[in-house]
């Protein structure tokens, strides 16, 4: 070990990073006056510090100091705490409260996340239902339209049939009038027209 290494080791030792000096360093100190003087200086500094640390320093005249202070404060009014966020700072400086707030935040986040998931699920379900219903309605409206068209066609067919019946009735009335007037030519003409006459009933006792 050279002097530079020995000094570094002594520094570590007095910085409380080493519990005791390594043997290698001790051997160097036994041979090197300069380094051993440096080590002695460190020990002396520790001894002086320890002596001062264990000394109980007290004021010789505490009453005099107290009275001086009490007389002086009359000229020094107390200042008010103007930090508006004093309680807020106190609140956040409290370690237990910080942990409690963090835990509450995590729980609230979890609850709201779950609620949001449930709501979104419901909205999706409703959207699907609405879509299905609108599809059904569209189909129903289309069916209704078709039905109306069919009804309309039926109506026109019925109207046509009524008109035909009327015309046939009119022709029958004309034939009956002609039969009454006994005009054979007109009767033949009418009979040749496409009129279905009701089947003649057999007379009672005719043998048919």
């Amino acid at each position, binding site marked *: 070990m050279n002097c530079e290494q020995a000094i570094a080791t*002594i*520094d570590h030792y*007095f*910085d409380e990073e080493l519990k005791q000096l390594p043997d290698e360093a001790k051997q160097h100190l036994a041979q090197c006056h300069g380094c051993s*003087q*440096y080590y*002695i*200086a*460190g*020990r*002396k*500094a520790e*001894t*002086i*510090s320890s*002596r*001062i*640390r264990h*000394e*109980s*320093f*007290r*004021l010789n005249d*505490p009453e005099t*100091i*107290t009275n*001086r*202070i*009490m007389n*002086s*404060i009359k000229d*020094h*009014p*107390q*200042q*008010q*705490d103007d*930090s508006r966020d*004093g309680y807020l*700072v*106190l609140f956040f*400086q*409290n370690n237990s409260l910080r942990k409690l707030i963090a835990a509450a935040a995590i729980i609230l986040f979890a609850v709201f996340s779950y609620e949001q998931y449930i709501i979104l699920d419901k909205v999706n379900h409703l959207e699907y239902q609405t879509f299905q219903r609108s599809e059904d309605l569209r189909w129903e409206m289309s069916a209704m339209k078709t039905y109306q068209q069919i009804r309309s066609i039926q109506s026109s067919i019925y109207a046509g049939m009524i008109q035909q019946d009327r015309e046939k009735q009119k022709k029958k009335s004309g034939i009956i009038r002609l039969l009454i007037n006994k005009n054979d030519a007109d009767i033949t003409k009418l009979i040749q027209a496409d009129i279905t006459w009701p089947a003649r009933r057999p007379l009672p006792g005719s043998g048919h």
Partner: protein
Amino acid sequence: MPDNLKDIIQAVKRGNEEAFRLLINRFQHKAFGLAFRILGDEEEARDVVQESFIRIWEKINTYKTNEKFSNWMYKIVSNRAIDVIRSRQRRPVSYFSAEQNLIDKFQDDKVLEDVELENRELGQLITLLTKSLPEKQSLVFSLRDLQGMDVDEVMAISGQTESQIKSNLHHARKSIREKLYTLLNYESKLK
């Protein structure tokens, strides 16, 4: 009058002077001990105690009960002591011969440990150690090695981080070792 510290402080916050007298009686020796360990001068330390308690009276409403009162007080005392050190640096004085005499006197560590010393001599030893240290190093060294505070307390009072304290303490101790080494070597050369 309340004797519980919390009640005393509440009373002081309401402007009760008698409660403040109780507070002074309870803490003035501790305040003096710290000021003396930083400054090494009894008269200066007394002045610092006086000024610090006036400051405590003025600022008591900013004191938050979640902080240890003694730490809050030590912060005020150490700030005032640092102000005194700064004002000293404007009038530098050489103490080398005085320091040499001191080292000669306490050459034997047993003498240093066993003999009853006056405040004046102890103050000289403090000055011997801390004089010429930068103020941050001087404060950390005084709080940790001379006052015996733990790192958490030093952090609360000095406002430095743990790594800053470690670094300042390392440099302060090394400077002191080197200074004492110079004084010891100087003596050995004379012999």
